[in-house]
């Protein structure tokens, strides 16, 4: 019975944290389902993609590529490029996700922007099992995404209220998580670099190409700052 209680407690702790993601995914997932249907794909394809790829940007980018002639290497390369930021999530979560068993595989599989931002910053309440908390955040986000995709793919065209701007909910969530982080951390250097360098790269390289240069710039800056940061004994 204890095992069951642990799970319920973790689910109860995880659900409220995922509410903004529920709102965002209902919008984005439905939009994706509609996009796929309009492109002529059976809802099963949209749902399959949301289950096994589980990545917003790449799934949208994939739509025209699925309509184009067969180019498997392009598909692979595009996924690597667009999702390269996940490498940083992985490095950031090496320690937090070093939990035993099969749960870990699922956590890594489902490490999307939104799940990462919650699991990386949220402290589960005392008495709540960390592994199950991370697991339920991931599972809830994954479910929202798949369910919303199905709704969009099956009934999409019937939705008619004006949702323009609703996708901003994700930006809002990340801004809040960032603000919360700045309010709680002792050393702001990493946060400042994280805003400043990508912003400079965005201005130089433009929206389509700024992510890789940003990652390189961040790595370089943190490498240079390693000695001074550790000297100050900064604790984030």
């Amino acid at each position, binding site marked *: 019975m204890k095992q069951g209680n642990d799970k319920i407690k973790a689910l109860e702790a995880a659900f409220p944290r995922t509410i903004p993601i529920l709102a965002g995914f209902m919008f984005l997932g439905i939009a994706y389902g509609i996009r796929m249907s309009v492109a002529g794909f059976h809802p099963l394809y949209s749902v399959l993609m949301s289950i096994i790829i589980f990545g917003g940007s790449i799934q949208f980018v994939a739509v025209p590529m699925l309509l184009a002639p067969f180019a498997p290497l392009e598909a692979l390369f595009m996924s690597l490029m667009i999702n390269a930021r996940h*490498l940083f999530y992985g490095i950031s979560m090496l320690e937090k996700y070093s939990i035993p068993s099969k749960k870990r595989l699922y956590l890594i599989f489902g490490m999307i922007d939104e799940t990462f931002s919650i699991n990386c910053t949220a402290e589960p309440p005392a008495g709540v099992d960390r592994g199950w908390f991370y697991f339920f955040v991931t599972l809830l986000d994954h479910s929202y995404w798949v369910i919303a995709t199905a709704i969009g793919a099956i009934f999409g065209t019937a939705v008619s209220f004006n949702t323009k701007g609703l996708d901003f909910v994700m930006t809002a969530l990340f801004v809040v998580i960032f603000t919360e982080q700045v309010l709680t951390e002792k050393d702001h250097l990493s946060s400042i670099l994280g805003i400043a360098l990508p912003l400079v790269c965005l201005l130089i390289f433009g929206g389509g190409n700024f992510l890789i240069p940003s990652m390189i710039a961040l790595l370089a800056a943190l490498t240079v700052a390693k000695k001074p940061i550790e000297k100050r004994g900064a604790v*984030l």
Partner: protein
Amino acid sequence: MTKAQLLITIALFAVGTMMTRFLPFIIFPKNRTTPKFVTYLGKYLPAAVIGMLVIYCIKDVDIMSGAHGLPELISIAVIVLLHVWRRQVLLSVGVGTVLYMLLVQFVFV
């Protein structure tokens, strides 16, 4: 594309995506000591990555034309101020999103 080609392409999108998620965990497995530099990155990178995610969200905003990014700027400023004041995640996210929707639907049309 044939059905088989379509499914192969979809599988490759999944494989590519999963490579980016699993690679760090494969290179630095649990049972081996992670290089000090990577541990250092694991500690200080997260804060920077959340910042990068914020910039990633506004990457397609065109500051040269249209609303010049004003709806985003105003909404983000309100979210930050509201969050510093009340520290309630859902309130800040909710107010910020509704404000943005009102701005793009009624003010900066």
